[in-house]
């Protein structure tokens, strides 16, 4: 891994391009997953606390790992803004992942509400990472609204369906200047590798790790796949064209000489 190839989001540098989700598996495995995955950023959600003695998740996240609270539960911009402010009060930093979902069947994000929430929260100094359905116009609006990063989904959350929106992610990678972090739907390390090869800045995965047979081992597989994909991208993909001669009916024959 090239330590000069840093990922910068909202002014913070990361060496790892793997963002881990902490949902759907036990707290005890979280620190192993973080360690084996080499993740430097992990998402968490905000929910009602209880006093039943359940061990708080923060006890399992090593110091130095950047917390990325998400606004899951928010169905509109107003709710997302409220959750973000609460999350920040917990004193774990300014990063916030905006997730506004008002469709409980596919869990697809509401792009318009996400733009509104981004604008409000960016003004309040949050480092906004906006989870969205890959639409170039929306991505541009998110950047104008102050997003530090745009997180297009690869496929609906939890489906492990792979890169259903691949070509649209490619467009965002080409046109948008803030980091593009592919989130949701990636089911295999090979898909994470592929999206990094295309030029994505980072990958986020949760369900794929959480539902694996061996969670720390799968986190490690993702780590390696993401490094491999990034390296391939930096190296420049191989050549297919091997000679200068062209098709049988030349278009340039008219130039003569």
């Amino acid at each position, binding site marked *: 891994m090239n330590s000069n190839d840093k990922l910068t989001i909202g002014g913070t540098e990361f060496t790892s391009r793997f963002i881990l989700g902490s949902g759907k598996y036990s707290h005890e495995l979280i620190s192993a997953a973080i360690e084996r995955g080499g993740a430097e950023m992990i998402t968490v959600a905000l929910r009602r606390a209880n006093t039943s003695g359940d061990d708080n998740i923060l006890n399992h996240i090593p110091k130095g790992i950047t917390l990325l609270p998400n606004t899951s539960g928010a169905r509109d911009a107003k709710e997302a803004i409220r959750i973000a402010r609460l999350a920040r009060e917990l004193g774990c930093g300014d990063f916030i992942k905006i997730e506004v979902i008002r469709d409980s069947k596919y869990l697809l994000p509401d792009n318009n509400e996400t733009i509104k929430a981004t604008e409000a929260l960016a003004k309040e100094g949050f480092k906004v990472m906006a989870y969205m359905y890959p639409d170039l116009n929306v991505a*541009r609006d998110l950047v104008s609204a102050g997003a530090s990063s745009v997180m297009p989904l690869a496929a609906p959350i939890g489906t492990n369906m792979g890169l259903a929106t691949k070509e649209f992610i*490619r467009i965002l990678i*080409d*046109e948008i200047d803030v980091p593009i972090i592919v989130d949701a739907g990636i089911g295999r390390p090979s898909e994470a590798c592929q999206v990094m090869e295309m030029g994505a800045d980072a990958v986020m995965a949760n369900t794929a790790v959480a539902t694996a047979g061996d969670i720390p081992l799968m986190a490690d597989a993702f780590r390696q796949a993401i490094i491999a994909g990034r390296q391939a991208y930096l190296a*420049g*993909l*191989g*050549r*297919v*064209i*091997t000679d*200068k*001669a*062209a*098709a049988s009916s*030349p*278009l*340039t024959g*008219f*130039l003569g000489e």
Partner: protein
Amino acid sequence: MQTESITREHDIWEYTPDMDIIETSVLDQVLESKQAYNPDDYTDADIKSVLNKTILSPNDLGALLSPAATPYLETLAQRALQETKKHFGNTRYLFTPLYIANHCDNSCIYCGFNKENDIITRAKLDLDAVERELISISKSGLQEILMLTGESPEYSPIEYIGEAVKLAKKHFNIVGLEIYPANVADYTYLRDCGADFVTVFQETYNPEIYERFHIGGKKRIFPYRFAAQERALKGGMRGVAFASLLGLDHHRKDAYATALHAYLLQRKYPHAEISFSVPRIRPIKGSLDGDFYEVSERDLLQIICAFRIFMPFAGITISSRENKIFRDNVLKIAATKVSAGVDTGIGAHSGESVGDEQFEIDDNRSVSQMKDYLKSAGLEPVMSDYIDAR
């Protein structure tokens, strides 16, 4: 400030008081990149690598314009053809330029309209004459007109141009303008009169050479001319066209800067429709002395293919300054818009010729002859695919 007072002593970076000044990030980037661009830096391996990509970066454009890509011209042409097919199909647009005035306050060494040229006859059509020309041209079935004036706000003020645009919109679906660089409010006014597109030739993106060739008149001010397309877009124009006069500076470098200029503006104003022209310096009547780089047809074709591959969705216009064979072939590969029925003299179309032309034309096929050619080449001549819904 009177334009007579802008002489070769005037600093090319100094705006006159009446000029809009907008922020210069695009200008800075283009000049910096052009400065850093060295066509000789690219290798055979670079070309192969670029041709494998679908989405090209400016650096890749640099590779396609370089001498290392010249041996691959046939491959470039095949790729360009693929891109043209994907984005334009077999459609080729027809238009004609209409010069309504040839008065000019500038002294551009290479141009037949320059202020010092006493040999040519100056003229300006009054609005009735403009309308006669428009009516005559529209009989050919054309729906797109490009109206040109020399660069003289005194003889061709914005209001005059605006009235001409209104007349043009009565007879044509699409009205393009190739006039002197104007302020944002002027472009808004012209847009409201019905203009759709603005074309400005930067001539060269090399400030030293620009200074040498533009020795008088407001055109001397480099950054104001450079920002014309951006001001036009801010004024609400639907699209803009870019060009260098190839041969003033080394054509590979100016071609690079031209496409980079368009690329950066497209990213800044994503709705804008972009197109390119590719004029080469050609023989003219009464031009002042100047020395130029030679641009061969092979060079020109390489530039056209590189533009097509780099920005596949941008239009490329091939003018009647090029000969018939070149035009015919380039239309099959990458050019998407072509002029027909051209006469660059003032009043020429309605038979009331009153003023001399800017340059000699090499291909003077009529609209129906051009349509016949296109059909014979398996291409589809289109007059207009646009409705102005305003």
